[in-house]
């Protein structure tokens, strides 16, 4: 698992061959009559932030669920650090260093920040929790990551959506995640909160030891934070560009065109 050999550059996509931490090729997934993913090939370079955009139902979440081990693809293979892996469960994926952060799903509101940070990997002395130690480590870790909250002792319920999201991300990094999957980390957030999360992601990027895939809807935010963008349409990747090579305008145009087509089809069938 720790072997980090470079492997021959895979198919498609922009940019030169670099060190790929995650590579999924020819992934397909069906749910009964619905084809969620047709033949998807995605790569994630080490230290990169990849934006995954697309309409509702395009397959973004399905892809993320496959990457985090929640669902298994019908076909295709996933390479982690160049080695083929079968992600059997979320826990298994996590043990391999792939962690997912769902909004509002990750944290237990009734528990304190530091208990959430340590959930299921608590520090204990005999049967008792080492709360003092956990508080100190959690505080140091959050400080180091630039996550500012009033206190690690407060229940998560008393924090804002952005703060909770930041803590969920910090927890994943704290748990040694090397590949971080963020499902709409900016949804339903005010500008100040968004700025906070964007800062956090930029900070992670600067440090370079975590690679990130983000699902998001706001193209402006995506282009600001991501190195590269993949557009999913009807279960296929139809665009793979570096952020600097595309624009909000281009992405918008593609999506608007898709709506037009759908509208025309409706009118024709009506």
């Amino acid at each position: 698992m720790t072997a980090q050999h470079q492997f021959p550059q895979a198919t498609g996509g922009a940019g030169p061959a670099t060190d790929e931490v995650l590579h999924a090729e020819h992934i397909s997934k069906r749910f009964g009559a619905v084809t969620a993913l047709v033949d998807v090939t995605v790569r994630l370079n080490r230290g990169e932030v990849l934006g995954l955009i697309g309409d509702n139902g395009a397959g973004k979440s399905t892809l993320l669920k496959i990457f985090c081990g929640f669902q298994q693809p019908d076909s295709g293979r996933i390479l982690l650090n160049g080695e083929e892996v079968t992600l059997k469960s979320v826990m298994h994926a996590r043990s391999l260093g792939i962690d997912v952060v769902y909004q509002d799903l990750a944290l237990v509101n009734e528990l304190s920040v530091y208990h959430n940070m340590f959930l299921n990997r608590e520090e204990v002395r005999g049967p008792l929790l080492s709360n003092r130690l956990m508080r100190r480590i959690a505080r140091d870790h959050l400080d180091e990551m630039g996550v500012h909250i009033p206190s690690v002792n407060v229940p998560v319920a008393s924090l804002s959506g952005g703060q909770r999201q930041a803590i969920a991300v910090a927890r994943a990094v704290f748990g040694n995640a090397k590949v971080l999957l963020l499902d709409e980390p900016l949804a339903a957030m005010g500008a100040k909160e968004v700025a906070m999360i964007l800062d956090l992601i930029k900070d992670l990027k600067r440090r370079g030891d975590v690679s990130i895939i983000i699902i998001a809807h706001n193209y402006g935010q995506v282009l600001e934070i991501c190195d590269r963008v993949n557009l999913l349409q009807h279960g296929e990747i139809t665009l793979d560009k570096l952020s600097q090579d595309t624009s909000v305008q281009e992405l918008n145009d593609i999506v608007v065109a898709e709506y037009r087509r759908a509208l025309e089809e409706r009118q024709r069938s009506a």
Partner: protein
Amino acid sequence: MSDTVESVGNVVGGTGPGGGNGRGNGARQLLASGFGVFARQREATVLVVTVALLLYFGLSDASSFVSQVNAVDLLSELMAPIAIIAIGEVLLLICGEIDLSVGFIYTFAPFVMLYAVTDYHVPAALAVLLGLLSGVLAGWVNGFLTVTLRVPSFIATIGTGFMLWGLALTVSSAEPQEIPPSSVSAGKVLGIPSNPWQWMPFIWAVVLVLIFHIVLTRTRWGLYTVAAGGNLLGAREAGINVGRIKYGNFMITGFMGALVGLQTAFYTNNVDPSAGGYQPMFYAVIAAVIGGTAMLGGSGTILGAFLGAVVLATLTDGFDIIGISANPLPIIFGGAILVAMIANVQLARLRQAGRTL
């Protein structure tokens, strides 16, 4: 140090980036966690009510209320059973379940003990253990139905409760039976009506409350119990075996029900199929709720439930002592439940409001 104060005061509607970064020394933070403060405040409310009631009845009829006889009545007979069963119910309510059968585990377990002695000639001490074990087993069945077969515990435990009740009635032909004289000494440690053993139920209640208070607040088991009730999916996502936690808490509750059943049997020197039932279970749930346990899971305290049990016992006993008819008692209990629940709900709403700011 001033930092500490600020960080605690700053909780609701937490500030954005650049807010206080609570760097106070954890060891010196007397108010360990915001949640703890919150929980303790709720306990404080019940504590005030408890002290007020004790004072009221104490001053109303000091000679009767403040006597050893009455202390035993109040603490060992009335309070201890509620407090002990409430321990289990609090754990279950926190992890999002409830056990409505525990009162019938209370009814049933003494018969296991009795027949082990009379029909199978098992030594009395071992028979007591078998009785306790039957409670744990009943709790396991509740866990199996709820966790493995996914029947909501509200219904599953009504079913198991009826079955245990019917079993107790059947094996006893609905007749109370005396505990064989040779076995009585085995019940000393559980509590029999002679000094000093009459204090044992109270001692059991206090010791168990303290142990499980620590379990709930200072161990992984407690943390996972809160996590299971607070965010079931999230807890599962974090890799916590939520099913195991629920099974365990059902079994703890079953144990508590059996313990109280055996204690009552020895205390009254009678194994009575009409003992137990719904009333002790409901009293335990009321005690939990008055003590600040949320019915929707995620929060609750065992110390609070203990105080809730003292309140219920004090009211029951006090009415008796000062010669008021016990008939209006259910009105007061009902009111207490409603007040406690309204307070819970409104506090939760306030918290919610603080969070969406």
